């Protein structure tokens, strides 16, 4: 297995009852790139990514991280391998503040047995993360429940990268955001790439992908269609691939109005 790829998924299959969500899907993610994962509703984008993040188990297939074969049996395994996913529904805790959210499930401790939490260190580290990400959150003590969609995404980002993370999966991060906030978030994703992360970006907004991604991976009906270099394709090419798939012979895209992201 080539070590050029930070993530390699081979022959991934997944069924939900009678529905075949993924059929023999391969995916290769280069180190330090942003790859857009696009496809229609139900194409299998989220399922594929959730297999990588350990939220689902694949029925068949292999996963390689840095060329090493790995077994991801749960979210903890994935996290240990440096894979973090920001879920579409955000997986934030409304009853907790920013710092508590960032560290939920892996609180910093101050004793050898890992029983007592180290609040001071967590608030300091949270403040650091917020500063590094250059996001507009005033204090790690703010309650998440009162935040805007964009701010919540930023907290989710901070949470994802708070620990050793080399692969970040984002599921429709801009979906619920207004134009200004979406742009801010795209900027943040670029920052994350500059920090050395490899990023998988699930999205329905093709212009977002064209703006910041290096490559785009197209799924249709649970099967891989194509992986394209963003610099060599147009919006129409991508849309055609999403709608018609590999066998579409490059017919023109249907009339679809896309919201531009500003």
């Amino acid at each position, binding site marked *: 297995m080539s070590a050029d790829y930070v993530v390699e998924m081979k022959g991934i299959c997944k069924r939900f009852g009678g529905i075949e969500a993924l059929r023999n899907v391969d995916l290769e993610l280069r180190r330090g790139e942003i790859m857009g994962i696009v496809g229609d509703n139900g194409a299998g984008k989220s399922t594929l990514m959730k297999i990588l993040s350990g939220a689902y188990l694949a029925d068949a297939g292999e996963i390689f991280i840095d060329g090493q074969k790995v077994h991801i049996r749960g*979210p903890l395994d994935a996290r240990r391998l440096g894979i973090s996913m920001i*879920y579409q529904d955000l*997986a934030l*805790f409304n*009853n907790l503040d920013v710092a508590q959210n960032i560290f939920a*499930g892996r609180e910093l401790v101050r004793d050898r047995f890992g029983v*007592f*939490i180290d609040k001071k260190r967590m608030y300091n580290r949270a403040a650091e993360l917020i500063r590094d990400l250059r996001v507009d959150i005033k204090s790690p003590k703010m309650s998440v429940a009162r935040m805007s*969609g964009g701010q919540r995404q930023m907290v989710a980002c901070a949470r994802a990268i708070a620990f050793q993370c080399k692969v970040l999966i984002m599921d429709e991060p801009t979906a619920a955001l*207004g134009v200004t906030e979406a742009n801010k978030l795209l900027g943040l994703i670029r920052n994350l790439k500059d920090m050395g992360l490899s990023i998988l970006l699930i999205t329905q907004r093709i212009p977002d992908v064209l703006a910041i991604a290096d490559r785009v991976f197209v799924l249709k009906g649970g099967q891989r269609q194509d992986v394209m270099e963003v610099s060599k394709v147009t919006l129409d090419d991508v849309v055609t691939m999403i709608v018609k798939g590999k066998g579409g012979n490059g017919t023109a895209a249907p009339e679809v109005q896309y919201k531009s992201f500003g």
Partner: protein
Amino acid sequence: MVAKIQPVVRSLYRNAGDFARRYAPLLILTSLVLLFTFISPNFMTVKNLTLMLRQVSFATISAVGIMFVMISGAIDLSIGSQIVFTNIVMAILMARYHVNPVLAILFCLFMGTFLGTVNGVLSVKLQIHPLIITLGTGTIYKGLGYIVANGKNIIGLPESFKVLGQGYIGPVPIPVLIMAVVALIGNFVLTRTYFGRYVFAMGGNPEAARLAGVDINRMRIITFAICGFASAITSVLLLSRVFSGQVFTGQGIEFDCLTAALLGGVSFIGGEGTIFGLITGVLIIGVLNNAMQLAGLPDFYQNVVKGTVLLVAVGFDMYQKRRRAKETIARVSTHG
């Protein structure tokens, strides 16, 4: 100087709603205390307050247990019945089989923890809401208690066993001391440990907690076991206080615990609650009970008053939350 104070005042004003929400239970308690001090000359005496504290100490210990369950997003309606069952068994062990009180107490604690664990395991395995599970197990536990008691009051407990429920250390009744210890430990576990954070996390968003690596099922079982353990402590103290095994001991105590918890701001749907709030809630109930007893009101009236206070307090809390949610929506929609 004025310039410095101004922003502080402004932020105080902005946070007045929060403040009211947070300290509403404390305000209610303070006003009740002041009111009764004026009305009844017998209220604000050391003797009366000590008795009042002892009266609430039993339920408070169980309430600390139920708080773990509630914050984690579940509910335990069986604690009264657990107490009925453990109480009778412990009484029989000591009175009929002359088991050493220390061993009998240890057995009771173990048994309570076990009954709680059963609740937890059943909610995990059957995937039914814990309200229904504990309604069922509670009925079973109570029935078992009645069967074991066989219609008799169990008397003839060893004299040495009296000290726990009736004794004093200095001026402080022993149950009050034990309540304080349990509350302190509960507070410490909830606010300073990994475990406590997990309890809050799973109560706030169970799916997110699972994805963050929290073993929800294990946590569910442990929180129920804690609740069972706490109720077993209550059971020991109640038996020592009543000093005979009766099937009525502890019955319905879960409603006092729930009322106190809700009054003190513990969320019914999970994710929120503090020991400080809980104690405030307990004291509100205690003060009300006590004052109404001093005033010579019959029990029935006390129930009406307690129920009303609960509805007003929780209603106010919900009103505040809803208003806050509206503000947030307004703010976010102007934001972007």
